[in-house]
């Protein structure tokens, strides 16, 4: 696919990297030539320097035969204009814009504003909101390393670390039905010492395994309790960093949790205190031991380090852990740091890029993909795909799961039919219109999975 990305900042850069790795032709436009050079040195992409909403610049980037425009500069207005130009002058099929201001996306105006007649933006993404939602789910499921929504949240994929002395640990996977008779669940993948194990009925879960399982949302806690001691719901959160993510998260959670938010800039702290209702806004450094002790860090359930500085986040998290916080979650942009830290003192490393790119990946896929989630820092992937076609044109419709020749490392974990969750078993038959949740242990096999679900030509 030919994709033009406007904006070479954090979001644009990571997106370019992810998409380029999937063999797309990427062109990145930015006014900052230096940022472009850095990207070009690293990735196999084309770059154009200039203002991304100007038609001439877009032409130079090859907009005329581009399949998709992704405008992710930090200005909402530039992003919208770029989409408008692409639509009006070049009829670009898919236009995606990053919109941060909640006022544009307010449901009151949204429908009238964003359509082909007025502002032709097909998909809107708000990276900060995506990350906020991601963290919100994590906070709501104590003990989980990762929680992902499928089919509007009725089915969830949860990653967690198995702990010994739990009912299922040391048991074969097929006993899961005896352990939890009323809650159907399926283990999609197991990572043992960072290596993927393809789960079969006889696989035995060991202490320390990272287990990904899929289940209907209301069964999640039941399944989790089989793999590790169930943690009490969180109440007291301390958030370090009142930037966009910290602010949105606090705003979303302040009525359900007891939140203290630490912000180092006086001006920003004043802004926060004005906008937030119940949360306590503290002006100071997240790495200030006195401040953390004064605010009873040892009694906090979770410490979330969400500043835009990886090093500060890591240091603050380590300090919080040392001072007695039960759990720390840390925003780490640099994948190298994330690999270093997760599983040690830091309980959950949150990768903002992973969350953001996930939300975009669905639109570059060939099969009818509803959502894509990157897991384990991009190594694995979970997809929600809608099945089309009939028995003749499709390789999956009308077949039992055990008869489907799925690519290596891919698990058909569950499907949603008419709004109901069905956990996949060997004899489950797939129908047209089903939403299938597929877990791919190795991202390299994603293509094969897509191919499996693409309708053959005779369909048309």
């Amino acid at each position, binding site marked *: 696919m030919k994709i033009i990305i406007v904006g070479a900042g954090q979001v644009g850069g990571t997106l370019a990297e992810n998409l380029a790795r999937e063999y797309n032709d990427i062109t990145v436009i930015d006014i900052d030539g230096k940022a472009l050079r850095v990207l070009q040195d690293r990735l196999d992409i084309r770059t154009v320097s200039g203002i991304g909403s100007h038609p001439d610049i877009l032409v130079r980037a090859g907009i005329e035969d581009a399949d998709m425009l992704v405008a992710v500069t930090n200005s909402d207005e530039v992003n919208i204009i770029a989409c408008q130009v692409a639509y009006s002058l070049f009829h670009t099929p898919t236009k995606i814009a990053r919109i941060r201001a909640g006022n544009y996306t307010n449901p009151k105006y949204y429908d009238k504003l964003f359509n082909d007649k007025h502002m032709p933006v097909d998909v809107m993404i708000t990276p900060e909101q995506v990350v906020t939602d991601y963290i919100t789910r994590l906070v709501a499921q104590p003990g989980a390393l990762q929680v992902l929504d499928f089919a509007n949240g009725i089915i969830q994929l949860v990653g967690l670390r198995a702990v010994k002395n739990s009912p299922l640990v040391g048991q074969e996977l097929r006993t899961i039905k005896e352990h939890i008779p009323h809650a159907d669940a399926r283990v999609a993948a197991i990572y043992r010492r960072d290596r993927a194990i393809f789960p079969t009925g006889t696989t035995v879960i060991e202490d320390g395994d990272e287990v990904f399982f899929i289940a209907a949302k209301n069964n999640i806690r039941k399944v989790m309790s089989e793999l590790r001691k169930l943690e009490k719901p969180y109440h007291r959160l301390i958030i370090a960093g009142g930037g966009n993510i910290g602010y949105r998260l606090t705003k979303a959670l302040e009525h359900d949790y007891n939140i203290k938010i*630490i*912000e180092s800039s*006086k001006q920003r*702290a*004043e802004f*926060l*205190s*004005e*906008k937030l*209702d119940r949360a*306590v*806004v*503290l*002006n*100071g450094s997240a790495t200030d031991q006195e*401040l953390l002790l*004064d*605010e009873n860090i040892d009694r906090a359930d979770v410490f979330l380090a969400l500043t835009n500085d990886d090093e500060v986040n890591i240091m603050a998290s380590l300090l919080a852990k040392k001072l007695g916080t039960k759990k720390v979650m840390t925003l780490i942009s640099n994948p190298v740091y994330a690999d270093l830290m997760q599983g040690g003192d830091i309980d959950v490393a949150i990768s903002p890029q992973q969350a953001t790119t996930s939300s975009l990946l669905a639109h570059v896929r060939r099969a009818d993909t509803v959502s894509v989630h990157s897991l384990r820092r991009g190594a694995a992937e979970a997809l929600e795909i809608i099945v089309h076609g009939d028995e003749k044109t499709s390789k999956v419709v009308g077949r039992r799961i055990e008869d489907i020749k799925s690519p290596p490392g891919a698990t058909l974990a569950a499907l949603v039919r008419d709004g109901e969750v069905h956990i996949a078993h060997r004899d489950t038959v797939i129908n047209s219109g089903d939403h299938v949740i597929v877990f791919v242990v190795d991202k390299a096999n994603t293509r094969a999975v897509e191919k499996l679900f693409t309708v053959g030509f005779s369909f048309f």
Partner: protein
Amino acid sequence: MHTAITARVLGLLLIVFSLTMLPPVLVAMLYGESTSQMFLLAFSITLLVGLLFWLPMRASTGELRTRDGFVVTVFFWLVLSTFGTLPFMLSDSLHLSFIDALFESISGLTTTGATVIAGLDELPKSILYYRQQLQWLGGIGIVVIAVAILPMLGVGGMQIYRAETPGPMKDSKITPRITETANVLFKIYVALTVVCALAYWIAGMSPFDAVTHSFSTVAIGGFSTHDASIGFFDSSAIMAICTFFMVVSGINFALHYAVWHDRELSFYWQDPEAKMYLALLAVGATITCLYLYYSGTYGWSESIRQGIFQLVSIMTTTGFATADFNAWPTFLPFFLIFLSFFGACAGSTGGGIKIGRMLILWQQGVREIYQLVHPNAVLPIKINNRKVPDRIADAIWAFFGVYLAVFYLMVLLLLASGLDYVTAWSATAASLNNLGPGLGSVASNYSELGGFAKWVLCWGMLLGRLEIFTLLVLFTPTFWRR
């Protein structure tokens, strides 16, 4: 300061004010009283003086500055009160001394409702009408000045009611121009008065009583045409109507406008000041009723009837009476007068420190405690999720401090004049809060007080009405320096 323009405005004010002495003439003719000549004389004097000011300066044009705003506001009450004394002094049936007449006139125009006259029931109807009308005029003056002018001057944190007003009153200047704002407020005020008068009349008052009482109800004044005040009618319906209109008039008129403009009653409950005002009224009334009953003062129904009415009347600083609350168990008179310090909402016809200011003071107190627990916390004072600038909070603290200082200074002066403590304390509160009736020897009227005490109370009423700083600023040398 622009002497010429100020003089022109004053002259104009007096000319308009002189016209208000004509309706009493009509009343006198209607009831066949001999007071019409006296009112015409007062009218002529006021008109003449007004013309003397206005004629020479009528050509001078120019904008009034902020400083001139202070002068005009203060003179509105000072000069009008002075000329308002004329009918009281000229009248055969009263023949008040100047200080008595001035006290009555100021009490009327500041909508205080304290009176030096005993034996109201025997007075000519035209004089009674004139007293009530003074209050009504004072009421509209307060609303316009409180909503349109004081925010402009920024007195005692009132600028919070300027552009950055939270809640439904995004911009309580209502309309872009002051004259237009005044016009809208005047219409609301008149409409309230008309509805109130009709309600009174339907409830059984004579047309004369209905009109005159509606004047002093909507103005939150408290003057009555009877010595026994509202108690004269001894009617639950009238008490209920009176209570309702006192409560309504105690709400910011800009909020009334917003409600009327958007047809959205819920604004009353969204506005934090109105919300606290209504809540305080409810809590105060409950305490009063329960105390009345359990202290054995009245039975259940009478406790509720008198408790609610008296609480609303005192807390909104109206000062109507149906019962001698002075004779209630000691807790209640002090409790009621204490509540009158809270008063009504800013931008209403009520007096006191104003609920809006109390709300911010309270929040600041809470913040201070909170800050001790969380030394690093950033805690803004918020009204309707919007931050109140520190400058405004400071101004309100200063206002509060000066209010208390003035209060105790007045108490001391009254004590020096020979009054007992309860009388001095309550008379000061009654005048500074523009309430009206006090305790002790000023429970029903102020005729027993000496001249000095009356002078002190006159200043008290003016200070309270003019939000203290507006009047005090005129006494500072900086103000007059060019």
